[in-house]
């Protein structure tokens, strides 16, 4: 079995995806991109509770890295085209997660993405977001629909945590691009200092 890094948002999908990885016997390290001040403290609280539940279920430690993502969002909002903000945001999340994977000796990255659930989860957007990293991306839920995911979430006890009151990401643009081109994304990224942003983000990681 392999060791991987899983992006945990506090939503319904990521604990279900993590459940499938753990059930297969993989070792997983969690990464939560802390989006404050563009959200409140509820996503982090939900991730902490998700992991407590899954740690107990699978008797695994599942360390959690919490990385500050708000400063990255501010840099992107100030300097880049808002329409492609979700793809840019995810590229920085993936890069940060890959740095944690290197630190943790992990060989894959994982996410709870399912195709087409939200505007940012189109094939072209996923491809352009993950073009920023080299490690393979595992998406256990890619072909699931929302009802299937919710049913599993209820069965493993994470649904009630995910659906507690919370604040959505306020950095999402009104009309996010659903089809992006990598050339365009790379041009936008030239407007910010990618390496410095990632260095700052990872340096401030805390482990829970």
């Amino acid at each position, binding site marked *: 079995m392999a060791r991987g890094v899983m992006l945990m948002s506090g939503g319904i999908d990521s604990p279900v995806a993590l459940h499938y990885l753990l059930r297969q016997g993989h070792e997983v390290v969690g990464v939560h991109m802390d989006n404050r*001040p*563009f959200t*409140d403290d*509820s996503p982090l609280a939900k991730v902490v509770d998700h992991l407590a539940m899954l740690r107990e279920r699978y008797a695994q430690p599942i360390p959690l890295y919490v990385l500050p993502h708000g400063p990255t*969002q*501010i840099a992107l*909002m*100030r*300097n*880049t*085209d*808002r*329409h*492609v903000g979700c793809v840019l945001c995810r590229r920085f999340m993936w890069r940060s997660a890959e740095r944690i994977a290197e630190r943790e000796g992990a060989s894959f990255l994982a996410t709870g993405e399912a195709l087409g659930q939200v*505007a940012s989860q189109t094939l072209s957007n996923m491809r352009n977001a993950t073009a920023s990293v080299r490690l393979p991306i595992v998406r256990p839920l890619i072909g699931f629909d929302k009802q299937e995911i919710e049913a599993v979430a209820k069965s493993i006890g994470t649904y009630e945590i995910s659906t507690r*009151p*919370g*604040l*959505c990401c*306020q*950095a999402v643009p*009104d*009309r*996010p*691009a*659903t*089809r992006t*081109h990598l050339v*365009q994304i790379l*041009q*936008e990224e030239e*407007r910010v200092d990618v390496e410095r942003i990632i260095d700052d983000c990872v340096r401030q990681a805390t482990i829970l």
Partner: protein
Amino acid sequence: MYRALRICSNRGAYEALPEPPRPIDLARARGRLERQGIAVVDARVMLIAALEVEVTISQNGRLLFKTRDPAAAERVLDQLRGLLELDGPPVESPNARPPAPSRTAKGGNQSGG
């Protein structure tokens, strides 16, 4: 005119919208808030101000109060009415910020809207 607060769909915050729509000059709003000693994060298309509860102030006039307490949200809305003259006459915005920078064509493949 901001008439009422309503709870957001995820029940994590309250929001207020101007009726009729009335944009906020964010540069001017930031100046007014900071002159009162209020910490402001400027993300160009929105401000995040640390009042009694944290408030997101969007260019389109939307105010989002990060609290689940409607009374606290109402108090902060009242405070902002005075600080930012929210219910004043429509303001032409000579200092309005430029649109998001873009070197890309605004073709049909840009947006899901």
